[in-house]
């Protein structure tokens, strides 16, 4: 809920930034509106550089007007003003002429613009001479802060340069825009970018802990420590399925899903494909891999080719084992459906990222009488695979599958690291529950990532 209202606030603020740029839509005919007594202004207005950002931003905070939500209850919004030197109009005029310019003139104008941008900090030094107050945004009643991020375009007169002195004031505004109360002026304040985001320290610690755990267990595994892994039905089925396909003389269909090569789920699927392809090559069974994403297709071709090489059968590899269909969800599904009913594969494997098509594929496969093994990290599609497939790797099991299939100690070692992390989660959850019940907020705050 909190998150949702925050989104609204941002949304509204964004609109107001636009509104400030336009302005103009003046007060309506307010003859029939009762006259409103002037409200009290905001107090304790402060301005400072926004934390943990890339600069170009100043955060204002204040205490609400006593007439906001209380007192006369007349304050509807706060208008934020920044002192802007007339020099910024020069920037605007350069921008205007740049819009229509071409060739060498544009080149010169661009140079002039860059010079002008370099002069922004100097121009702000002239405060309070040679400039004026400009409305830069609005905060709704009840809000006691505002983040001024200016405009990202460096040529714009609203661009906020770093290391520049800015001055602000905030008006408490009533329903009648003419009736308002200005605050005191704050400034100078400068904005600048940070090199480390302190709000993300908890994530940083987690990265370190997790990285060290993984490296620790991988090195231990490399030294040859015995590691137990519990059996997973879906994984054991893979070998049987390949054997079955060989006996029946029918192909194996491997679907990588709709993910791109950027999805870790797809990358995990490549590894599984590699293992499957190797065994397929050994057994000399036919493999079919239709692809949705062209990059995924390219990687899958590499994977399968190398697997055939590994199995000592490079001559059996041909390019069209892995082929591209189309990058359209349902066209891809239509084609894979057709393949399933025409080639009648002994086994269908669905590994990777899937969306609504999961059930269409799995039901058609069941119709064709194939054994089906699925694995996905898309929580919403798990129910359909569970219902329609013979074996399903649920979430994390998909990632564990590559280690299981390879039985390599190094990969199994990293599974151990994941298990320790899970144990840590359980302990933390228990502690967190105590903390929440006893109102021990310090502990809870350890985990809050603020930006």
């Amino acid at each position, binding site marked *: 809920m909190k998150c949702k209202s925050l989104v609204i606030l941002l949304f509204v603020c964004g609109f107001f930034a636009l509104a400030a740029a336009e302005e103009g839509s003046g007060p309506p005919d307010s003859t029939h509106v009762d006259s409103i007594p002037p409200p009290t202004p905001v107090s304790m207005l402060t301005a400072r550089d926004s934390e*943990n950002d*890339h600069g*170009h931003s100043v955060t204002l905070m204040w205490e609400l007007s006593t007439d906001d939500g209380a007192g006369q209850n007349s304050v509807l919004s706060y208008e934020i003003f920044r002192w802007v030197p007339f020099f910024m109009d020069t920037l605007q005029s350069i921008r205007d002429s740049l819009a229509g310019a071409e060739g060498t003139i544009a080149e010169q104008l661009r140079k002039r613009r860059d010079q002008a941008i370099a002069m922004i900090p100097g121009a702000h030094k002239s405060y309070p001479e040679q400039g004026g107050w400009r409305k830069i945004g609005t905060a709704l009643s009840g809000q006691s802060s505002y983040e001024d991020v200016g405009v990202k375009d460096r040529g714009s007169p609203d661009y906020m340069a770093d290391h520049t002195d800015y001055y602000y004031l905030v008006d408490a505004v009533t329903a009648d825009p003419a009736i308002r109360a200005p605050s005191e002026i704050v400034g100078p304040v400068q904005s600048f*970018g*940070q*090199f*480390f*985001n302190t709000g993300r320290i908890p*994530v940083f610690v987690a990265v370190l802990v*997790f990285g060290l755990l*993984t490296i620790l267990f*991988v090195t231990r595994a490399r030294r040859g420590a015995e590691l137990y892994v519990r059996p997973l039905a879906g994984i054991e089925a893979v070998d049987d399925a390949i054997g079955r396909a060989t006996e029946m003389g029918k192909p194996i269909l491997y679907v990588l899903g709709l993910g*791109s090569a*950027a999805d*870790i789920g797809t*990358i*995990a699927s*490549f*590894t*599984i494909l*590699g*293992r499957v392809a190797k065994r397929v090559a050994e057994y000399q069974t036919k493999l079919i891999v239709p*692809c949705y994403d*062209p*990059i995924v*297709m*390219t990687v899958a071709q590499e*994977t399968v*080719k*190398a697997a055939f090489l*590994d199995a000592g059968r490079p001559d059996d590899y041909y*390019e*069209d084992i892995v082929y*591209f269909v189309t*990058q*359209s*969800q*349902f066209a891809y599904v*239509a084609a894979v459906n057709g393949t399933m009913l*025409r080639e009648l594969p002994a086994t269908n494997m669905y590994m990777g990222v899937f969306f609504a098509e999961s*059930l*269409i594929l799995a*039901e*058609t496969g*069941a119709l064709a009488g194939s054994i089906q093994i699925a694995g996905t*990290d898309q*929580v919403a599609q798990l129910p*359909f695979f569970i*219902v*329609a497939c013979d074996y399903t790797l649920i*979430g*994390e099991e998909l*990632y*564990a599958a*590559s280690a299981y299939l390879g039985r390599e100690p*190094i*990969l199994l070692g*990293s599974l151990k690291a*994941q298990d320790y992390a*899970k144990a840590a989660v359980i302990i933390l959850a228990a502690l967190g529950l105590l903390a929440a019940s006893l109102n021990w907020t310090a502990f809870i705050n350890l985990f809050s990532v603020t930006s």
Partner: protein
Amino acid sequence: MRRQIPLALVFIFGVFMIFQYFVPHESSEWIYEFLLDWIYIIGIFALALGIWSLIRVSVAKIKTRKSGWGYPVITMAGLFLMILFGFTGYRDGSWGFHFMTAEGLSNPMFRNFFDYIMIPIQSTMFALLAFFIASAAYRAFRARNVLASLLLVAALVVMLRFNPYLGPFGTIIADTASWLLNVPNLAAKRAIIIGIGLGMVGTALKIILGIERGYMGKG
């Protein structure tokens, strides 16, 4: 060399992206945006490879003249017609290499193919799910054991949540259904998501460290 350089690239870019996350400074954000743009651009080159693969597979099927060789001809016809519509257009009084104009698409046939071929097939494929969800339910919801029974009962309760013919049980079922959807659902999803998070993080780390190279065909 042929294997080492790609692995080094993976390591360098992987580590860079991790550090980038903690550095809010402008220069770090610029590089981040550049890198994301690059991926899209490389993706288009890859798409050319994809289309090439589609054409090759289709042509190979046509050449064999085995039964059904006519269908790849339809694929190719659709492909080349749509490419023709997508890359030619009418603007400023002449036909040429255009796509959009101020009035919209410069070749209206592109839009027509989208509206009257792609849309109806796409939405019908999607609508097939209504049938498949029914057949999957019939086939799989059997009370064979504890797990299957739980699956079955939960699905039945939720499917009956707005059924008007249940009399006094209606409210209880509706309440139970919404409780199931809000409470255990949240628990299970969270457990799965934490597991997925760990699996993803572990896999990503293994990729960056070069332990997991299955995607390069080296297990």
